[in-house]
């Protein structure tokens, strides 16, 4: 229903910010008492989001603006979140690449919650719908070294017993 508006959201941080803005907008609308709603939207939301919201309202003409805002907030909050722990501070282009990949290969509904942890060296740790997987370089490194250590211990034991 709100695909065009929601498609702007790529990260949980953006979603949380928009929810705050919408709550604020709802309060202002209540207080404005007849002031042009489109002006309020333009003044209180980001440019792209404001344009999409105005466009949606022009097309769908919701009966009650406040109910529409509530329904939009609910839709934002219900988006599945994929937590991505990465080793570097992402640029906007990085987020576009990750979100683009997810949209293309998994689902358009998912938003990203990006956390930065330099100790993972590279790669990513992924948490989604209660599942967790560690594809970090430090994990690969530990795994390879432990594998090697097991062989090494085996060899030592053979040598001790031999």
């Amino acid at each position, binding site marked *: 229903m709100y695909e065009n508006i929601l498609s702007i959201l790529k990260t949980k941080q953006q979603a949380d910010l928009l929810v705050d803005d919408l709550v604020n907008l709802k309060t202002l609308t209540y207080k404005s008492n007849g002031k042009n709603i489109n002006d309020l939207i333009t003044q209180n939301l980001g440019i792209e989001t404001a344009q999409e919201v105005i466009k949606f309202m022009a097309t769908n003409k919701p009966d009650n603006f406040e109910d529409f805002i509530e329904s939009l907030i609910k839709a934002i909050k219900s988006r599945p979140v*994929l937590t*991505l722990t*990465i*080793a*570097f501070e*992402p*640029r906007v282009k*990085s987020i576009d*690449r*990750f979100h683009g*990949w*997810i949209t293309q*290969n*998994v689902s358009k509904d*998912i938003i990203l919650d990006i956390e930065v942890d*330099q*100790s993972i*060296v*590279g*790669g*990513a740790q*992924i948490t*989604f719908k209660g*599942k*967790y*997987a560690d*594809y*970090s*370089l*430090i994990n*690969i*490194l*530990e795994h*390879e*070294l432990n*594998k*090697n*250590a097991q*062989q*090494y*211990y085996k060899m*030592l034991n053979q040598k*001790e017993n031999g």
Partner: protein
Amino acid sequence: MDNQIILFAATLLTAVLGIIIGAVAYSYKKLITKYYVLKDEIERRDAQSKQYSDQVLKEAQARASIINQNAESYQAILKRQMDEQITLASQNYQAAYQQIIDTLKNESIKSIQNISNDIKTDMNSEIKNVLTSLQDEMVRTQTSAIATLKQGLAKSEEDIKLYKQEMYKKIDQSILLIIQNVSYKVIGKAINLEDHEDLVLNALTSAKRQGII
């Protein structure tokens, strides 16, 4: 008549006294003989026990010398084995690390190709430092182990076995830690932003393949 009786009595008394003195002298002589026999016996036994204790002492010295020799040769063997194992561990970890670098290279992570030499240099110097301190610790612990060895060879062998295992573990943990630190310092800084992004996209692809997302 009275004189005759007195003379007879005196003679008889003298004779009895003579017999008594003779008997006493005889028994005294017998006692002296017995004393000398006993004295000889005691001296013989003393000599025997001295000889025995000398023998025991000599044997103990010989055994102590053997234990000492064994301990020293064991120390030499142990040191050689530890040196071999440390070299082997270092080689193994470097090989494992090289394998990881090769894997990353195959995944077209361009930046990593330029840093493997930096990693080797850093890792080698770090490993050398840790191994030097481990060697020092090894010598200290060996000295203590050798002291224990002298007290009882069998128990010490068990101690040394445990000690060796402990040392291997320490070497292993130290090298793992070094590799992690070096990776963090070198790889983390050397990978450029685009390669970082590629690694994250690889992670997402793997997660999808494994049904995580």
